[in-house]
């Protein structure tokens, strides 16, 4: 319940405040969002499999976001930021797909 409330609060906050992303953060935000989505799908799958753990979720969420941002940062420094962020999106997208497939099997038993 409180999770749903927090999500609603976050959406409305983003809509109301209309924040502009600082220029330095602009390359990292989309990657961080994708990484967080991956963590979220992993959490949902774990919950469905009844192995959900709050601590694990928080740690994996934060670690996912940090590692993704770090990889993009290093890529930018090396001059291959564009390619690395593409690869991160691809890898995380595959993980999201596999997690979504597990969730689907769990929910629809198919």
């Amino acid at each position, binding site marked *: *319940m409180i999770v*749903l409330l927090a*999500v609603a609060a976050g959406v409305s906050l983003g809509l109301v405040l209309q924040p502009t*992303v600082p220029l330095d953060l602009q390359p990292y935000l989309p990657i961080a*969002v994708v990484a967080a989505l991956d963590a979220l799908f992993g959490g949902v799958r774990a919950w469905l499999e009844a192995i959900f753990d709050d601590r694990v979720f928080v740690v994996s969420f*934060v670690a996912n976001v940090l590692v993704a941002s770090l990889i993009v940062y290093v890529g930018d420094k090396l001059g291959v930021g564009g390619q690395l962020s593409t690869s991160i999106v691809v890898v995380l997208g595959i993980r999201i797909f596999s997690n979504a497939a597990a969730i689907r099997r769990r929910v629809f038993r198919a």
Partner: protein
Amino acid sequence: MSGPDQRAAGEPLRPRLVRALLARPGRAQLGVAALCGLLAFALVTQVRTAAGSGTLASARTDDLVSILADLSGRADRLRSQVADLQRSAALLSNGSTRDSAALAQARARAQTLGILTGTLAARGPGIVLTIQDPQLRIHADVLLDAVEELRDAGAEAMQIAGTGGVVRVVTSTALGDLGSRVTVDGVALTAPLRIVAIGDPRTLATALGIPGGVVDTVDASAGAHAIVTSSPALSVTALRALAAPRYASPAPTPSP
């Protein structure tokens, strides 16, 4: 898929979901909720950023640099193309003005030469010398005097008319006698003769009227009479065919 809690996993979904939604939020759930709220916030922000900005604003630095290089290369190409086209345009306009100037010059020269050689009709101010000679006493020498006198005075175009025809007087004109008649370039003319000369009327009239000149000579002949009339507008209409030189050909101009 074999988690440690298979029992719970096998439990029907809906009661679990309801229970989870109605459960009292613990401290652990607070962290999860905070992260989910943060994710929602970031998601909305990113979506707004991606939608609000154009394609260039969300592009990465590398892409921007390559786009810029592309554009500047294309601008360079277009600029050199513009320079080429301007050069050829200037070339063409220069060429056409030079051509038309040369054409006008050639046309003016052709007109001058046409008047001199008698292939073109001419008009302008001048005099008419009329010689009445009922007794046919006037011969070619008097006419030759008249023509020479008029040439000296600057006549630019001349023709001699009489009963029998009209002849343009040019550089190669020959005068002769055929019996009691005068021939000009082989055409026999009888009096009254009418010589039209285009040039400065006063100079021409003076040249003919000098004491002992053409008019005096004609008047001295029995029954003959000469009249000089000035006119501001005369025309010399007799033409002469141009014969191409058979032996002479243009010699190269000596370089200065």
